[in-house]
């Protein structure tokens, strides 16, 4: 068993529910125990555009709590991940901000020593669990399924350990499940999730480009990161965007842990698959039949 302190982030309790269900189910299979960080609060991510200090201070509150557990802090949401790592880097490197953050946290008697280890799940799957172990858990090989792995931005930029231009870890996971990874150039392009409310037309065009790119390269489904923003943005919005052929996009959007769960032989309900808005069963049916 491998133990982590788990920081779900706000959206994992709402739009991210399907992802959370699949993370829980897959973790069990892989002998990962996630102990939710008690009393965690918003990581401050949405605020960094407008107030860096505020954002770093809110993130550091959570880093300090995680530090006390002595465990690696596992963060599924790419935005939270990026913001927590960012705060840790700024705290350790920028004296001016560190002093101000310390002063702000002192108001509530919190002190951060600077030793938290923030990890994302892909990193843990690849480096702590290993592809061979993942492959050994496969009950339904996803043979013949052409999976386009989408990474978005924050999982690997600016600090993630995977390549920031063309990350590969999710493709490697898809391959170990028996699927065929599909390369598409926009795999790490931003989906615009942060601006979805304020700049809808811009975000729709970004989504169009990504979905179109997947189609052109023959992807039958798109496997997202575990970021609820990327997931919901792609899953819930594509019905509003016309594809090149003038019809609506109908790309199945599946969180990478949902895909793993299907291959591990878990049931659709355990993986939250019934909550996906895009037509996922269409492509997954042949692999779900085994234990429907």
């Amino acid at each position, binding site marked *: 068993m491998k133990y982590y302190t788990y920081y779900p982030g*706000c*959206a994992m*309790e*709402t*739009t991210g*529910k*399907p992802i959370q269900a699949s993370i829980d189910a897959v973790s069990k299979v892989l002998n990962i125990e996630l102990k939710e960080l008690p*009393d*965690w*609060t*918003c990581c*401050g991510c*949405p*605020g*960094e*555009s*407008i*107030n*860096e*200090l*505020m954002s770093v*201070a*809110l993130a550091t*509150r959570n880093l300090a709590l995680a530090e006390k557990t002595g465990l690696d802090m596992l963060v599924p949401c790419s935005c939270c991940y*990026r913001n927590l790592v960012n705060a840790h880097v*700024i705290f350790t490197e920028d004296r*001016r*901000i560190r002093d*101000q953050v310390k*002063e*702000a*946290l002192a*108001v*509530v008697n*919190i002190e951060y020593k600077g030793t938290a280890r923030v990890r994302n799940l892909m990193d843990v799957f690849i480096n702590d669990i290993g592809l061979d172990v993942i492959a050994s858990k496969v009950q339904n090989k996803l043979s013949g399924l052409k999976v386009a792995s989408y990474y978005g*931005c*924050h999982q690997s*930029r*600016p600090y993630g350990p995977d390549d*920031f*231009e063309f990350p590969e870890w999710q493709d490697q996971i898809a391959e170990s499940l028996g699927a065929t990874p599909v390369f598409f150039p926009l795999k790490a*392009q*931003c989906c*615009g*999730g*942060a*601006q979805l*409310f*304020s*700049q*809808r037309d*811009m975000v729709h065009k*970004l989504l169009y480009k990504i979905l179109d790119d997947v189609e052109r390269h023959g992807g039958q489904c798109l496997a997202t990161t575990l970021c609820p923003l990327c997931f*919901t943005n792609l899953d*819930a*919005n594509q019905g*509003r965007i016309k594809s090149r052929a003038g019809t609506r996009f109908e790309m199945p959007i599946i969180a990478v842990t949902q895909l793993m769960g299907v291959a591990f032989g878990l049931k659709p309900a355990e993986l939250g698959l*019934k*909550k996906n*808005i895009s037509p996922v069963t269409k492509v997954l049916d042949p692999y779900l039949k085994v234990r429907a």
Partner: protein
Amino acid sequence: METTIRGAKTFVDEVAAEPGGEKINECIQCGVCSGSCTTVEWWEHPPRKIIAMIRAGKREQVLSSTSAFNCVTCYLCTVRCPRGIKPAQLIHAVEAIAEREGYKPKTPTIKLFRSLRNAMRQGRVWELGMALRFYLTSNILYGLKDVPLALSLMRRGLMPIFPPKKVKGSREVAAIMDKVEAMQKAGGAQ
């Protein structure tokens, strides 16, 4: 026009004093950031040009432009900048100044930030409350277009109609935010 703000002599000094603006004078104007920018087609002045304009002291023009508010914070510019400048952070420093000084760019992004900040005060963000607040203060008609989306999320239990239960930390979060704001108002923090 050059203006003196918070004791900083010029606009470029002012930006350099913001977190993220520190390295602005090391920019070599290579244009890698603009060439990489995911949303550059929406920018009136692309990132490289914004930097040039700041250094040229075009305060008014930079702060009233919608450009920086098109940034989706994807960090492509940042990982590629040959000078290690972190243009994404620098762009956010510009947004921060514009927001603080009450500039009203023609994009609703600033209002989104404000309703987010309000949501953050509760300790955990409640999306529906945030969205409602944002649409009510920016553009209700624009917001109505999202109703079908919200309903389809609600049907699946993915968009709770009540705020999340308060955690112990929410009081701490509010206290931290108050303190940061007080420090920034006092001028010591920026």
